[in-house]
């Protein structure tokens, strides 16, 4: 798929912000979940998106990834406006996502999950099963550090532990070499050692010159990993601070104030 189909060519290819949302609105029926979001991610930056349950974090990232179409507003990726809002299109542009819901299919094998929606095929659409299995195997052992012998690329996802499922979801996002990786509560339900792996991985994104959006409710996870914190409150951006401007304790304090008074200060 060509990029030109997805974007208008008004801007030059020079860009300073990897991703930018301008005045994005999204509602479900009468519920206005996003109300005028202005948000951006720089090149080589990890942005933490924080906010209460139901603040609209998942909805925000789903408008970026094309799961939802914004009712109003514009989204730019690498300086070019995204006009076709579909998951296939955003993946083609270089946005990979680890969804809160993990987006796996339980009865399917690991290798089918790994390549869902992006199968390696020949011109007739016949899947190169051998290659998909090999790549899955490599990814599981090398990148995600799966050690259990009981798990193979043919294992159905339903038999995996929570951490292993998350490993598959993250491995999948890794494989496709994205410019922007979105992680929606990737550490949810994970043990300490599994969490550490995810956090190490998040930090390594920057080393590869890529960017990430990281959503979590745990400030001990977010603070060390992120460069910048964007606070979302009931569908609006309530704050945007760089790590250099705020200590972890201050951030926690201000979030508590926000929950109490509705103001981030």
């Amino acid at each position, binding site marked *: 798929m060509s990029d030109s189909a997805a974007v208008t060519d008004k801007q030059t290819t020079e860009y300073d912000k990897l991703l930018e949302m301008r005045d994005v609105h999204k509602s479900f029926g009468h519920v206005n979940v996003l109300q005028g979001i202005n948000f951006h991610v720089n090149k080589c930056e990890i942005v933490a998106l924080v906010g209460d349950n139901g603040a609209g974090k998942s909805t925000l990232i789903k408008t970026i*990834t*094309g*799961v939802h179409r914004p009712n109003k507003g514009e989204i730019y990726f690498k300086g070019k406006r995204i006009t076709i809002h*579909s*998951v*296939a299109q*955003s*993946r083609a542009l270089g946005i990979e*996502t680890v*969804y809160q*819901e*993990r*987006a*796996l*299919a*339980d*009865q*399917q094998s690991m290798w*089918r999950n790994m*390549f*869902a*929606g*992006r*199968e390696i*095929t020949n011109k*007739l*659409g*016949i*899947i190169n*099963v051998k290659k998909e299995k090999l790549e899955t195997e490599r990814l599981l052992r090398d990148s995600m550090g799966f050690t259990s*012998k*009981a798990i*193979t690329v*043919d294992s*159905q996802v*339903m038999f995996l532990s929570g951490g292993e499922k998350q490993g598959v979801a993250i491995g999948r996002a890794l494989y496709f070499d994205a410019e922007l990786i979105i992680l929606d509560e990737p550490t949810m339900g994970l043990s300490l050692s599994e969490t550490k792996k995810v956090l190490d991985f998040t930090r390594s994104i920057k080393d590869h010159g890529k960017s990430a959006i990281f959503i979590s409710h745990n400030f001990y996870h977010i603070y060390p990993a992120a460069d910048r914190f964007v606070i979302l409150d009931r569908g609006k951006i309530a704050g945007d601070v760089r790590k250099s401007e705020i200590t972890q304790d201050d951030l926690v304090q201000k979030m508590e104030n926000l929950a109490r008074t509705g103001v981030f200060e």
Partner: protein
Amino acid sequence: MLKKPMRLEHKLDLSILIVFFSVFILFFIANPGVFSRFDIYYSFMSTIPFIAILALSVTLVVVLGMMDLSFPSVLAFSAWVFGTVFTNTGSMLLAVICCIAVGTACGFVNSILVVRIGVPSLVATIGSMFFWRGAVNMVARGRGISLVGAMDTFLFRAFVGRIGGVIPAQFLWMIAAALFFGVLLKRHRFGSHLLFVGDNEQSAAMMGINVKRVKTIAFMQVGACAAFVGILSTLEVTYFWPSQGQGYLMSALAAVFVGGTSVFGGMGTILGTFLGALLIGSLEAGIISSGLSGFWIQFIYGLLIMVSVSTYATMMKKRG
């Protein structure tokens, strides 16, 4: 260390294979005279392909966790189109093209109800089942169409001729369909999408799979296959009749479920459906020639279905 467990689908395939051969051994023991001769297999080869092709095609919809009950009516309506176009133009090719196009369009109508409007597939296709049966009764006014004139065309021989004087051509179509659907479901991108959508629709959407498109194509191919079987079954007897296909509904669905495909979606076996169709299709003749009276037929059908689906349900429970 645990022994690597056998995958559920392989277990299902194995059990249907065992059932299939057991039943045939039983037939053989009961009446070796009939089952050691070619005649009965010849008759199987000419009749079973109709329900087998239908069952193979419907398997894809069942893999999506959905249902299509309208295919026998679509079959009849497209077969009427086939007969009418042929008798009016004398062109087999044109008749075939019109017939398949109409069947595909009927499938598309189902997909509009299910995918766009959001009617559950079982309910939607109950509606279209009556609709197309009613339509064919109206347009045919209860009368059949004789197609004896089609017998000396090339396409007639290609569809239902006797290869080498002995093998019914539709048998080869059935084998081809089984191979096609087998590759499609387990080795083709589309099959992978079917499995993923049937398993978890939300996940599929989040992975960029066009869920609506997958469902639409699934219903359309059932329509196309129903039309194709409509052609085969019409030509086999060189006669169209408006109640055509009515007997295929339950036997085709029984073949799918006896084969081990789950009604919940996300899994399916083409080998299972294929063997299921052979089993269901040969049961009647098998029972009769075993010396049991015709009264036994439905009873044994029922027993077979109940036992096999119970076995599969038990297997499913155990793996969790």
